[in-house]
């Protein structure tokens, strides 16, 4: 541990973790490299693409913009923390709707959609479009992702 590094405590997907971080490290880096949870992805690194979306103390955030030290003591959910007991209706709905192509944006989409359904349990299609507008999918899966979220809501929410 160099002089400027310090330990932080996080509750990640229900497990308490302590990691040593440099002040410049983002939450995304710490989760991906320190905790080796690589489900969250890095693309734009400036909060525009949503591939790194996590839920931080109940709020959906771009984890590439959150410094790890800022998250000290927080509760974090990543894609790996969704559906701890099997797949969620949201995950099932994504697969059934054909919402997944290359899959690189999907973990971020899944977390963002899950947070959206917490906030708005029965979203309309336009609420889904608005709610997920910070998540980019270059494969153009948007219409099917949208349909999947609406369908999952109908089937019983993110964790039912």
């Amino acid at each position: 541990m160099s002089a400027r590094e310090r330990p932080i405590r996080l509750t990640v997907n229900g497990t308490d973790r302590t990691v040593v971080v440099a002040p410049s490290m983002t939450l995304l880096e710490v989760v991906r490299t320190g905790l080796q949870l690589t489900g969250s992805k890095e693309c734009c690194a400036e909060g525009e693409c949503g591939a790194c979306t996590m839920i931080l103390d109940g709020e959906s955030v771009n984890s590439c913009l959150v410094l790890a030290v800022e998250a000290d003591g927080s509760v974090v959910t990543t894609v790996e923390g969704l559906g701890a007991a099997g797949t969620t209706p949201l995950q099932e709905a994504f697969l059934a709707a054909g919402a997944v192509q290359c899959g690189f944006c999907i973990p971020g989409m899944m977390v963002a959609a899950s947070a959206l359904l917490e906030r708005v349990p029965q979203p309309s299609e336009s609420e889904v479009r608005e709610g997920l507008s910070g998540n980019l999918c270059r494969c153009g899966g948007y219409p099917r992702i949208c349909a999947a979220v609406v369908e999952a809501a109908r089937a019983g929410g993110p964790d039912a």
Partner: protein
Amino acid sequence: MLDRGVGGSAPRAGGLDRVTGAQRFTADIAIDDVLHVALVKLDCGRAVIEGIDTSTAEDVEGVVRVFTAEDFPHPMPRFGPRFADRPVIASGETKYHGDPVAVVVGVSKESAAKGAAAVRVQHVEVPGVYSIDDALGPDSPLVVEKDLRPADDPLRETNVREQWEWGWGDVDSTDADLVIEETYDFPMVTHFSIEPHAFIAAPEDGGVAVWSSIQHPYLLQRTLAQLLDLPISKVRIRAPDPGGGFGGKGFPKYEPLVAMMALALDRPVRLVLTLEETFQAVRRTNARIHLRTGFARDGELLFLDAVDDFLMGAYADIAPRVIGKSTYFAAGPYKVGAVRALARGLMSHTTPSTAFRGFGAPQIAWALESQMDAAARALEVDPVDIRLRNLAAPGEEIVPGDRPADGDWRESLRIAAGKVGWGEPLPVGHGRGIAVGLKASATAGASYCILRILHDGSVSLIAGTSDMGQGARTILTQLVTEHLGVPMEQVALVMGDTAVVPFDYSTSASRSTVFMGSAVVDACRRAIADLIDLAAGHYGVPVASIAFTPGQVLVGATTKTIPEVLADVFGAVPGEIITSGSQRGEGVPGHPLGGPAAFYEFSCTASEVAVDLETGDFELVKHVTVADVGKAINRQHVEMQDEGAAIMGLGHTLMEHLLLDDRGRIRNLGALDYRIPTFKDLPSSMESVLVENGDGPGPGGSKGSGEGGLLATSPAIAAAVSQATGVVIRDLPLTPERVWRAMQDDTRESPEKEGTKREDN
């Protein structure tokens, strides 16, 4: 329940890992003792490098080594699919904004980045070639050093790297009632895969192992073997499924660099590009197309005369093939009596352009289809009718002597027109447009696979296609299920490791279903033959008395399953059936493209827009794509690919454009300033329709698909905007500002004055 058979919609193979985050992309792979790489770049376009001071960088804590051109062999090793012109690292000068001049290797990403910031590069900016006009200018600097081109190359003192002259008939003596002559611009756009390119290299077994997000691992393997003077067997490429490719991950980029550094350091190294660095690594070839077309009064397209200027980047990559192949089909899907096309591939000091979904065909369609609409307006012929009048019918040639039309393209056009409500009344401010596009598929290539029926009857299929989202895993698994009757859940597909997976030419040109799909069907047939041989020997009956239907072996009057037969045959010592399959396309010597296309990908787009006549902003009310796919092996996969292509097409049509300043710097570098379609840019209603006439060369009569949806996006939407506003726009993207400006321009020509009409009859 989704229908899992061929033609149904079996769920994505590998889908579960993609929704749980378990899918490992290249950047997710952890290797012990790996070192991190950061690129050193200059904030300018072309510059002469006078010296590089690495001493401060070397002192940065955690920096292991700094590499510059001096640390690589002399002369600098070069590579590339068309010309070996790309150096492993910039040597002497930077050729474009972002061309790395040095590389810092550190124990962490952070130390490598700190080291990179500490490298001092003494350099002088010199004039560069940053546009088509620059490239064609009489005094413009040469991008490629003269001595890197053959002495007998008549173009070696120009920036034209290659040019092509295609054509037939006599354009100059063809009389026409209407001649349209205009110039169309197609913008410089970048792939923006959500997964930035990633590379890892490590010394392995007397050679090297490289992990890459590459689409064509075997091409990379050959490239590295040549550069490193290693046998192909000592270069192992591991190619995890790419997180989006779209053509941008086809050809080697930084793999030779990381491989050479890993060997020099005798340690694994990894380089994960930033999104900004991907903008500086790959892009589509932008184009300016000057087109002159002649029509008869009834709308018959009589001649086409084109000068196509395509701006490649600093290294040719596969762009010459993009240009040569797309302009060969200058007349698209139409039958035209006389065609003359001059296509020029121009070098510039910009990001090297490469393959990008559509492979040049969207550029061609933008100009050609815009002219079809101009002619329709001038002749007062319906835009659907003028296309029906000229589209080649099945069996009619579009290029004399070459593969004729292999689909009922007029059917696609009629379906699209019907779906968009063609001819129905429109509210004020609304307009409709329709356009078609044609892309030629692979002309040659080969795919091999290995199929093993294991002792319990489950199957291991080893096939080298890359699944970058198009769903090759699903399609190939479905074909095994269809032919052997083994449930999809019992088929394991092994991909992405050249040490165990046999050769596949490439994952490009929508070729995998046709080429690798046929190889898999071939392997299944051989496996069935082997199974019957073994059974006949074991049961002591003639081969002819054994019949196979998927999942069932009929031995005389007895029906057995595959595992039952295998258990009988092998007894106490387990065994398996191992077969291979292959599909080769040899090409045709002397053919201008190396061979005729295996199939054509034909697509039709119809769109309705609602334009705000005050601001120029517009919404897509309805967007329909029709794809002639021969046969959809997996309906849902094909539809999602077609929709995805359509949405990608909205990007270059509505918003995407890499902007360069006069020093060659990309001004909108990154996701903040370079916008791609989001959820909020979707049409209010979207539909993808598949035409399936079983007329393709692949399994079940399939053709490749998945690129078509973006071929005709731009001309369809532009025509709709023209109808709504009365202005014609010939430069992409169709931003609200551009539409608004066109509407304000009092000197604008009215659409009905487009073209020159013959007055005498």
